């Protein structure tokens, strides 16, 4: 049996569109009470719902520990704005920000902007990778100690610690430096769903957390190995990646006889993995997959957030904690700390350690 790695848990808190912040705050607090690593909030320009990054920014002061990961799309938004907004979420949450990178492939979304026609997913994921790359460079463009407040010389910042990024991509360029000082985590956490092929390459190259939708522990482990291999090919240390299995969960029937776990359950829909049953069986499934070394953790999307997240936290998570598989509190303050990821040094800082770093 492979050595057991720490288990990471995250949950999606989006459901049918809601516009009152109290709803989202209550869910994020619930996840926080379960010591989950982070919550995600899905987003797209094409379906009803508020801007996810703004919602999680609204949630930030009302929570203390849980990571906050909105979906931010890269196809129609300026890369400079993306990087500024995510860095600012990291500031207002005191180091708990991430972003889930996504692309907008449909003609309907393109027509909302009228700037460019819809493009194939592979092309858009390449661009998304460039946006992630440019964003990370902008986050690095202020060295950590750039603010000097030197009254003797009258300088607030040391301009030698600020850097143009001069990023040239296929569809955009950014000169830099960032307008937002380097965020508390150095770089907020980048999350990519790496299930489909065009996204997987971007995930392997740029993501800190990779989500994988697969129906068996074997398939998941296979994708995990593939992502790690590709990351290594890009010069990254694969151990700086966290691969989470993505499951949609429906715990609505918890009162009835528990359905068998996923493996013997109904085959899963094209959209990925769908678990229906009780919180205890879900805990068993998580335990099994994790013990098998298939994944570093799980990203759970409750079908009905109010109901299912409560059952996840009070049922599934409580049981995992009881089995000492999952922590009972957040030992650190930042999302990177929850995930066991180091705070990266700025690539522009002299003497930074190159090993395991993106270049």
């Amino acid at each position, binding site marked *: 049996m492979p050595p057991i790695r720490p288990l990471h848990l995250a949950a999606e808190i989006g459901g049918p*569109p809601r*516009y*009152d*912040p109290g709803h989202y705050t209550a869910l994020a607090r619930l996840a926080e009470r379960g010591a989950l690593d982070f919550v995600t909030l899905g987003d797209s*320009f*094409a379906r009803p*719902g*508020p*801007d996810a990054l*703004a*919602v999680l*920014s*609204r*949630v*930030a*002061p009302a929570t203390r520990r849980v990571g906050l990961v909105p979906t931010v799309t890269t196809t*129609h*938004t*300026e*890369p*400079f*704005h993306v990087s*500024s*907004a995510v*860095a*600012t*979420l990291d*500031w*207002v*949450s*005191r180091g708990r920000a991430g972003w889930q990178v996504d692309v907008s492939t449909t003609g309907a979304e393109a*027509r*909302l*902007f*009228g*700037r*460019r026609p819809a493009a194939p997913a592979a092309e858009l994921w390449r661009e998304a990778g460039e946006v992630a790359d440019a964003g990370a460079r902008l986050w690095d463009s*202020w060295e950590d100690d750039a*603010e000097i*407040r030197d*009254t003797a*010389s*009258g*300088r*607030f*910042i*040391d*301009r030698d610690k*600020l850097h143009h990024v001069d990023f040239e991509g296929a*569809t*955009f*360029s*950014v*000169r*830099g*430096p*960032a*307008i*937002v*000082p380097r965020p508390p985590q150095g770089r907020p956490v980048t999350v990519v769903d790496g299930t489909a092929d065009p996204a997987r390459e971007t995930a392997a190259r740029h993501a800190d957390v990779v989500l994988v939708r697969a129906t068996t522990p074997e398939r998941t482990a296979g994708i995990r190995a593939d992502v790690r291999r590709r990351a290594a090919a890009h010069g990254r240390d694969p151990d700086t990646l966290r691969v989470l299995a993505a499951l949609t969960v429906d715990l609505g029937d918890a009162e009835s006889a528990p359905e068998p776990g996923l493996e013997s359950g109904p085959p899963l829909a094209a959209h990925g993995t769908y678990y229906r049953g009780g919180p205890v069986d879900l805990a068993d499934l998580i335990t099994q997959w994790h013990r098998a070394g298939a994944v570093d953790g799980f990203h759970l999307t409750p079908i009905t957030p109010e109901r299912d997240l409560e059952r996840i936290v009070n049922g599934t998570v409580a049981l995992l904690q009881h089995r000492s598989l999952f922590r009972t509190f957040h030992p650190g303050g930042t999302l990177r700390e929850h995930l066991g990821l180091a705070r990266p040094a700025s690539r522009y800082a002299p003497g930074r350690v190159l090993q395991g770093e993106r270049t």
Partner: protein
Amino acid sequence: MTTAPKQLHLAAHFPGVDNTTVWADPRSRSQIDFSSFEHLARTAERGLFDFFFLAEGLRLREHNGLIHDLDVAGCPEPLTVLAALAAVTDRLGLAATVNATFNEPYELARRLATLDHLSAGRAGWNVVTSSDAFTGENFRRGGCLNRAGLPQALGSARTEGNPLTRAAELVATARGLWDSWTPDGTPRRFAHRGEHFRVEGEFTVPRPPQGHPVVIQAGDSPEGREFAASAADIIFTRHGTLEAGRTFYADVKARLAKYGREPDELKIMPGVGFVLGDSDAEAQEKASEIRRQQISPQHAMLALEQVWGQDLSSYDPDGPLPESDPVPDAALVQGRVRTGDALAVAARWRALSREKGLSIRQTVIEATGRRSFIGSPRTVAAELAEYVAAEAADGFVLVPHLTPGGLDDFVDEVVPLLQERGVFRTAYTGSTLRSHLGLAEPVWKG
């Protein structure tokens, strides 16, 4: 019949790191930590202010090809900060500066509508524009526009196309999107086809609680005034003196009628500083000291080089101004709105320096800086009320020079005096920014 005195409106601006900030003061704290924003916003709400206002930066300024280490040294993205502040305030309006040149209407309308929902009707949008290719180097919009065969804006100077026409179309398109859901919450298809934008589809956010977030316009040019008269709820101005303020006020209010609007539908709010002391004399002394801190020798030399358009590092800030004339149209400073032509500014500065026998630094201290209200709390309250009574302003955007405690004294000492005079509210009467400003909700134009 006695009429109630005209009520004034108050907003608080979070000072960035620039020549209005005294960051070297030992009481000065972080310019970026959320705690600083929280303190200032909570103080403004304690003072029953109409709104809290954040500026935006899209590129760090550069001087002589180097990143400027004294001016506008970093700031967070305003809409995201304000969404967080909505969690720690209940009534305070939350206004973000968001550029109308480097954003697209669909996305911007969505982010602003979201802020209005998240704050239960407290969002405001300060529409600014940019015409410089320097800022454009951080954005791809120009490239996209060129490919689509639409009018190009990136790289074009003020002469080629007015960024205000894009801004006006952007605001109109955003309003259309905000109106695209029926008041009973049904989304409807939206289509806009104009000179700058083609937007087609369904908006993802219901009509904002305020109908439309409050629209603010900053600027002074005739086109800016016209734009504000046609489309804005508030106009920011730099006209701080009583006379200039009255002239500006009369001009702008007179423009409203042709858009079928009443004078009350556009509030005029200059951005002003303030310095309080136990006595007027003490406040004056403090103000001089603050100006000395704001305009350090280094800052004075930078300001001089910005006007003269050349490297003047061999000059002594405590010595006389250069005899030579400025280099016209020099791009020594980038990322800053240039005001006035350099030759005229230099002539004015030289005259001032000769007349009063001032050094470079003293001249810069005298010639620059925004209007400040300086005096005891009683003096400042009286002057503010006088400006509003005399129709030089409808209210003020206060710019404290200290972060984050720079508003504390004003709220504790001046606000009660304004209330005593009957010119400022003693409690919030509504919950939305529009209600604080006495502005009606825009009629739904589905």
